[in-house]
């Protein structure tokens, strides 16, 4: 499968393609990484479907959207939900319990990319996290929705209590690192890059694909 554009993954998501028996229903922000893992491992029996990544900014809409997608998913032996809690306040876990499916452990994608145990141990409450996807889509997910394009004077109100941007890098991409660094500068925050690779996502998908 060709990697879809970030724009499509943000706004419309990704329809499932292929004749797999396992469906991974994921956030659009994880599409590149999951498609890479599918290719890397030769999981021809795994199909990927993504919900629009912009739901990240409206966590209350994620569980209802996932439920609709699960209702529409037909012909799969098994479905795996490639979401962490993602601000749903347990709504995704409750959905998975009702439907008898598995999901990724942890509060959000930052945690499972970083490794749940390490993330919790770090306890970086004053860190604002970016992933590869969010570094590429910083304007769409952060800058414009917060109105900072129109009212840059609000920056201190939003980010005054933060100390640093932590870029959790899934890939070694010098240009993207610079982009993330520039985003930190725009927020007036220090910058730190941590290479995480796929973190706990790889192990979670291995279990899903098994």
């Amino acid at each position: 499968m060709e990697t879809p554009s970030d724009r499509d993954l943000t706004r419309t998501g990704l329809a499932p393609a292929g004749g797999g028996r396992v469906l991974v229903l994921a956030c659009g922000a994880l599409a590149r990484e999951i498609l890479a893992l599918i290719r890397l491992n030769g999981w021809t029996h795994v199909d990927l479907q993504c919900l629009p990544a912009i739901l990240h900014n409206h966590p209350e809409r994620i569980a209802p959207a996932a439920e609709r997608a699960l209702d529409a998913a037909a012909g799969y032996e098994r479905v795996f939900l490639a979401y962490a809690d993602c601000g749903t306040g347990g709504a995704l876990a409750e959905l998975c319990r009702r439907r008898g499916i598995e999901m990724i452990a942890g509060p959000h994608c930052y945690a499972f990319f970083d490794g749940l145990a390490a993330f919790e141990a770090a306890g970086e409450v004053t860190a604002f996290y970016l992933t590869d996807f969010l570094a590429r889509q910083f304007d769409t997910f952060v800058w414009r929705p917060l109105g900072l394009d129109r009212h840059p004077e609000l920056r201190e109100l939003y980010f005054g209590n933060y100390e640093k941007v932590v870029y959790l890098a899934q890939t070694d991409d010098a240009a993207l690192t610079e982009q993330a660094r520039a985003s930190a500068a725009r927020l007036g925050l220090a910058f730190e890059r941590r290479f995480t690779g796929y973190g706990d996502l790889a192990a979670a998908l291995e279990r899903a694909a098994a």
Partner: protein
Amino acid sequence: MADEDDEIILSELSDEDLVAQMFDDLYDGLKEEIEEGVNILLERGWPPYKILTEALVGGMKIVGDDFRDGILFVPEVLLAAGAMKGGMGILKPLLAETGAPRMGKMVIGTVKGDIHDIGKNLVSMMMEGAGFEVVDLGINNPVEKYLEALAAEEADILGMSALLTTTMPYMKVVIDAMKEQGIRDDYIVLVGGAPLNEEFGRAIGADAYCRDAAVAVETAKQFVARKHNQMAGSA
């Protein structure tokens, strides 16, 4: 909409038109205009509390309603709040001198592990606007800090805020500690924050979940009135 040739001179407006214009200016987040409007009303002999409630809180109510209804969004609300804060800055020192009614005292803070304070700050401001005295503990508050402040300030209300699903359970830690110390029923406990809901508020033993700053004010007023009635009834 007025163009440049048709600029509105606030001082030339009648009281009624000026208040209406201040509603518009608050809505548009025009801090300097709000400060000017407050000063004009003061010069015209309006008591500070009347300016606060009729011009500022009245205007912010429209902003709050339109935010609730999805017409305004967070950036616009923040700009409006900034404008109101400008007006409050002028009025606050005058309110104490002029015998504005005191509704009660609130200790408020964002819970441990959470540094988000936009909602909390809006609640603080609107509570002050409604005549409550507010002691703002800021962000990242452990249980001890809440309990110390409640006792030291002789507060009526505890307000707790959280933006993260990972931090909102800490509200229960605070309420449980209050129960352990036998002081839970001495205070009205209000909770709020984007990921919360009424069910969560009930489950952790809060008195109420407040969806937004305006609801927080109304809820606080109701509970304070109820508390006073109970005290009067048992006297």
